């Protein structure tokens, strides 16, 4: 755009606005101003990834020991009082036993952290224990809600969360994103195990009406400077439903629209249940080179991707990771792409169920899942009971699932060793 086309309407003289008697605010003018700005500032409960909230959603938690993939989770109580928190992992597979909940306590201003694949045997300052992610591999969401001392969800807009997805091989890399936070409306929780997001009976802010993000499209060739040269990009997106049903899975249908750098748009509709992870160029087709999300089809290396829930299904949240492929093979460095939140869903509520289905009956003390309890596994159980080893070293000995190994659970493990695992 040439210099002549856009000009300011002002003179070149330095502009100052002296506070003359004509402009000096009267008390009434100040009052009017306060009313105007006060009305504008009185915003309803909001959804945001940059402000403390009562409910946090981490749309993508990744754990895969074979690929040396894990997620470092940081959860902070930014408030001035102790805050109880209840969290739920839900794996995208929705397979039995792949959801787990846990409760922790954060002191005023206290930050805590753990790796999803490992958990934490004991958070500092008697914060409680965090189990490892309930599936291996795990690809799903984590939701954490502020509660009262009895575990009933309660307003407490103090939680902030950061997740860093760490990859150990073939090259070490990491990408960080902020959890999406939902502020509380102040309405009481009529069902303690179901959170209402938006709608007439809203307990928390409404889910966004849509999302927008500007990733590099798949197959784009991007210059990364002299040290890395030109790399081909792949963007992997995780879409989680705003509603959550760990038993049956919440469903959503979304319109996915991509607008290229020339302002041209293409759209595809896709359904999902609870959690979806896909390369961008596989959202609409199995043949990436033909995808509307490929740079070749779109005609530009980046696009404005808009994700809008349609129909009566759930709203959605998302996070994307762009990798810059290593020419020698492998994904190369990766960056997180956090979407913009567009509007809010006013017509219908999203429901988050916190009740986790019971895991299938396991063999007590069978640490390695081989349907037999060996002596070393009994020893692991005893060590856990004595506090000499973390629970994560053998969760199967905690058959009650309460985070504590009691005498009866050790006895059950011994019985399994002597008599064999239950059929």
């Amino acid at each position, binding site marked *: 755009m040439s210099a002549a086309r856009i000009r300011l309407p002002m003179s070149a003289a330095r502009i100052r*606005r002296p506070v003359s008697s004509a402009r000096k605010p009267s008390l009434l003018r100040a009052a009017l101003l306060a009313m105007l700005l006060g009305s504008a500032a009185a915003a309803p409960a909001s959804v945001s990834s940059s402000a403390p909230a009562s409910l946090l959603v981490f749309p993508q938690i990744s754990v895969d020991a074979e690929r040396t993939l*894990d997620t470092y989770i940081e959860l902070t109580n930014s408030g001035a009082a102790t805050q109880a928190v209840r969290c739920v992992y839900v794996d995208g597979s929705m397979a039995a036993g792949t959801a787990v909940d846990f409760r922790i306590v954060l002191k005023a201003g206290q930050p805590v952290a753990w790796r999803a694949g490992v958990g934490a045997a004991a958070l500092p300052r008697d914060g409680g224990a965090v189990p490892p992610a309930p599936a291996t591999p795990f690809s799903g969401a984590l939701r954490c809600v502020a509660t009262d001392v009895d575990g009933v969800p309660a307003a407490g807009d103090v939680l902030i969360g950061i997740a860093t997805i760490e990859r150990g091989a073939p090259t070490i890399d990491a990408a960080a994103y902020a959890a999406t936070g939902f502020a509380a409306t102040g309405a009481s929780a009529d069902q303690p195990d179901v959170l209402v997001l938006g709608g007439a009976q809203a307990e928390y802010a409404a889910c966004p009406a849509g999302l927008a993000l500007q990733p590099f499209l798949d197959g784009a060739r991007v210059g990364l400077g002299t040290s890395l040269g030109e790399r081909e990009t792949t963007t992997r997106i995780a879409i989680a439903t705003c509603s959550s049903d760990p038993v049956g899975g919440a469903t959503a249908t979304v319109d996915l629209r991509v607008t290229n750098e020339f302002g041209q748009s293409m759209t595809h509709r896709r359904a999902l249940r609870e959690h979806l992870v896909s390369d961008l160029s596989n959202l609409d087709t199995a043949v990436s080179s033909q995808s509307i999300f490929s740079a070749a089809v779109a005609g530009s290396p980046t696009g404005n991707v808009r994700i809008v829930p349609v129909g009566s299904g759930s709203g959605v949240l998302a996070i994307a990771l762009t990798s810059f492929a290593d020419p020698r093979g492998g994904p190369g460095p990766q960056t997180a792409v956090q979407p913009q939140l567009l509007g809010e869903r006013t017509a219908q509520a999203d429901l988050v169920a916190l009740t986790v289905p019971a895991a299938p009956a396991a063999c007590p003390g069978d640490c390695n899942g081989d349907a037999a309890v060996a002596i070393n596994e009994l020893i692991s159980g005893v060590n856990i009971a004595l506090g000499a080893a973390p629970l994560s070293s053998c969760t199967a000995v905690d058959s009650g699932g309460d985070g504590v190994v009691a005498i009866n659970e050790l006895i059950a493990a011994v019985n399994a060793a002597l008599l064999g695992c239950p059929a």
Partner: protein
Amino acid sequence: MRAMAGPHHAMPIDATAAACLSSDGDDIHEYPVRFAVFILACTLAGAVAAPADTTSERGASILIFPKVVSDGGGDTLLQLANVSEEGRIDAFCTYVDGRVGWQSSGFSLRLNAAQPTLWSAADGRPAGDAGAAIPAAPADFRGELLCVEIDPTGTPASLNRLVGRATLLPSDGAVAAYAAIGLSGSGFNDGDEVLCLGDAQSDTCFLGEYAACPATWTLSHRAEGAIDEQLGAGSAVATRLTVVPCSQNVRDGDPATVQVRFDVTTELEQRFTTTTPVTCWADLALADLGDGLFDRAMLGADVLQTQLAPIDGSGGFVVLGEVERRSSGGGVVSRTLPPLHHLGAAVAGDVITLPMGRP
């Protein structure tokens, strides 16, 4: 919006609000009913105006990219997009060098509805089907990119349609990306080159035209030198912060200084404080602050929450956090730019003064 004649210049403000501001307080005594209706209208006008906010996840009218590097060893990929599907926007952007006394280099661009654009700080973007040329950053550049939404006449506007993203390409190959920090427009904008952030009144600012910079920024991070469990023994985590004062007199090249207070809480509930001044632009290593305040060896804790706030009377600022994971050999093996959270509005009003005669 209806332009309204005033004693100094045209003020394209929302019509109802403009009427409110021109009110003479003597009316209340002579026409009480009319005045009551007037109050109601003013209140409704305020209710309709969008609450101004600092945001990286919604469209805004001012974008600040705190860290842009193009110094021969590294580069930065810059993305801007019109997040709205309702119409085009124009933007005036300026590279502001953080080290050379606020020297700036400006340009304008236009984005149609939902249109994104991409360029590198080192190369710019040639003119073509995507739009006019975008210049490269000045040579050996380390600083910020500031973008302001304007209308086709060059007047600052408050449509809140701009979003942005930067991908840092350092010489060590540890690529990382961040979302630009946005300041939304309040809907009250007199269209001059003095952009008023927040509601504090002064000789130059009577109304808050844009969101105030936050009162507090919160960073969740690990202590300096904490071992990275994935990298193993000998590894270390290090955190850097880029701080940019919100008050920026780009027109006169007059840098502002802010006083930043750091309040640190460890996972063991221990609390510490330190302060540091920042003039113009600063790329700070936490290891260099507070005489080892952030060191794992001193704190005895790995996990920290650090709140950054302006000391009373100091202006607001924006912050970019940068976490480096270093191997036992000391080299950076990965870099992340975790988003910071923020709360409240800085008490002291901030002002951005754009350069005159910009394109």
